[in-house]
């Protein structure tokens, strides 16, 4: 049963939204998926809305996806990237945002390296805030598009087996995915080297495995994460080669399962490391569908938040 509007005016994380919110976002995203497959992929709903994309961290995929979603809703878009900005001159986060808001911006999509930055902002400003990733905390839109893609393939996710592979410790995608899938009633298992799995992750209601083949055999969906080299200041794994030997997913492994499995990856893929090229391009993989769904899901979120008075 879905609500008729969202219970919150921001999207800060999956942990703050309800199951009904998630269902509403999925239903609205179904409609937007139809829109982005039309000859003219635009609807005028957000024509009086201005949205600022504040990306304090590098991103290509998420930023383009959000920008496309905003433009397809006919919103006006303003982009801000930290590398070429006043942040280098030492301006505080609040000052940067308030300056932008004084130019009458209605919504803010923010990616920031500090966990909790969007939540902090939400306490101080009036605009709707969407978290596009805050450090190692959450990445709610990615989890929603992942779950939407799984639902497209499997239907209701209740009772389905979903496995997340890779660097769980540093992954905001993993955390948001776990929250979202648990809310939808799925069984979740994380699999990776023990050094990359947080100590108390079982408290979230997930199982832990260190065996890739067993986990692949168990799951209906394998969501494979990138090894996050840029977040690792100490050595968690001996080498990339060793990770690939023990935890990489390759064609031989997938073929040996002799069953239907869905392979997902939030991108960008380190081909040959966590996922081999031929698996990423195989008929099991829905990686490109995830990207298409990402625009539809983000359009749904922007539409629902903008309509919240």
């Amino acid at each position, binding site marked *: 049963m879905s609500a*008729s509007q969202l219970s919150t005016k921001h999207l800060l994380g999956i942990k703050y939204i309800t199951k009904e919110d998630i269902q509403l976002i999925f239903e609205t995203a179904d*409609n937007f998926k139809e829109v982005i497959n039309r000859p003219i992929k635009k609807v*005028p*709903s957000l024509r009086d809305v201005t949205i600022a994309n504040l990306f304090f961290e590098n991103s290509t995929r998420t930023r383009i996806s959000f920008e496309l979603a905003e433009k397809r809703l006919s919103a006006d878009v303003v982009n801000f990237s930290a590398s070429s900005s006043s942040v280098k001159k030492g301006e505080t986060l609040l000052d940067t945002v308030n300056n932008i808001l004084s130019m009458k911006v209605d919504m803010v999509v923010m990616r920031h390296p500090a966990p909790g930055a969007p939540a902090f902002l939400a306490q101080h400003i009036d605009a709707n805030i969407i978290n596009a990733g805050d450090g190692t905390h959450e990445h709610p839109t990615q989890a929603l598009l992942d779950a939407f893609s799984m639902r497209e393939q499997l239907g209701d996710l209740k009772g389905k087996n979903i496995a997340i592979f890779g660097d769980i410790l540093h992954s905001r995608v993993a955390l948001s995915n776990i929250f979202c899938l648990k809310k939808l009633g799925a069984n979740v298992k994380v699999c990776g080297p023990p050094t990359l799995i947080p100590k108390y992750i079982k408290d979230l209601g997930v199982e832990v495995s260190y065996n890739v083949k067993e986990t692949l055999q168990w799951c209906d969906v394998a969501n494979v994460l990138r090894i996050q080299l840029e977040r690792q200041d100490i050595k968690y794994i001996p080498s990339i080669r060793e990770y690939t030997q023990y935890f990489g997913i390759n064609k031989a492994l997938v073929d040996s399962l002799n069953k239907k499995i869905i392979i997902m990856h939030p991108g960008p893929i380190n081909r040959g490391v966590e996922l081999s090229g031929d698996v990423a391009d195989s008929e099991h993989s829905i990686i490109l569908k995830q990207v298409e769904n990402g625009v539809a899901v983000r359009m749904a979120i922007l539409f629902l938040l903008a309509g919240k008075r």
Partner: protein
Amino acid sequence: MKKGKVILEQERFVLTIDRLCHQLIEDYDDFSDACLIGIQLGGVLMANRIQQRLMDILGIKDILYGKLDITFYRDDFRTRTTPLKANTTEIDFLVEDKNVILVDDVLYTGRSVQAALTALQHYGRPKKVRLMTMVDRRFNRHLPIFSDYTGIRIDALDEAYVKVEWAEEGATDSILLFAEKK
């Protein structure tokens, strides 16, 4: 909701639908280059009924039929107090160069039809677009829009609410007038 005043029901309702169908046949013959597009929600129910009746009368198996949802094209999205929920749009044929008969149950301010025309443009360029409505509330218009095929004209105050009920939904075929939308 209080019980509304019945304007038209059952046999006279069916007679009106028949008359509308025959008006369409007069203009479009066997519907080889025409299509019906119903505006969600009420227009879809009506378009469905019209399509079925046309197929019965003409004895043909297929008339092109689509559903158009206008939620994303509404001009009151950001000023409303109540939330909006979208329905499905299903137009699995090309409207390019076709005679489109847009169908809605009640023509009130005309804003739904304006939204529908904008939405339709995003699917292609029809040869002609004509509007069919069951009810025309001719003095409540906000925009210069008129209906080409009308079931019945009802003159009512702005705040009055006209509802069309369909047998397909488990109700009786009827047009009801309420003093206000509650």
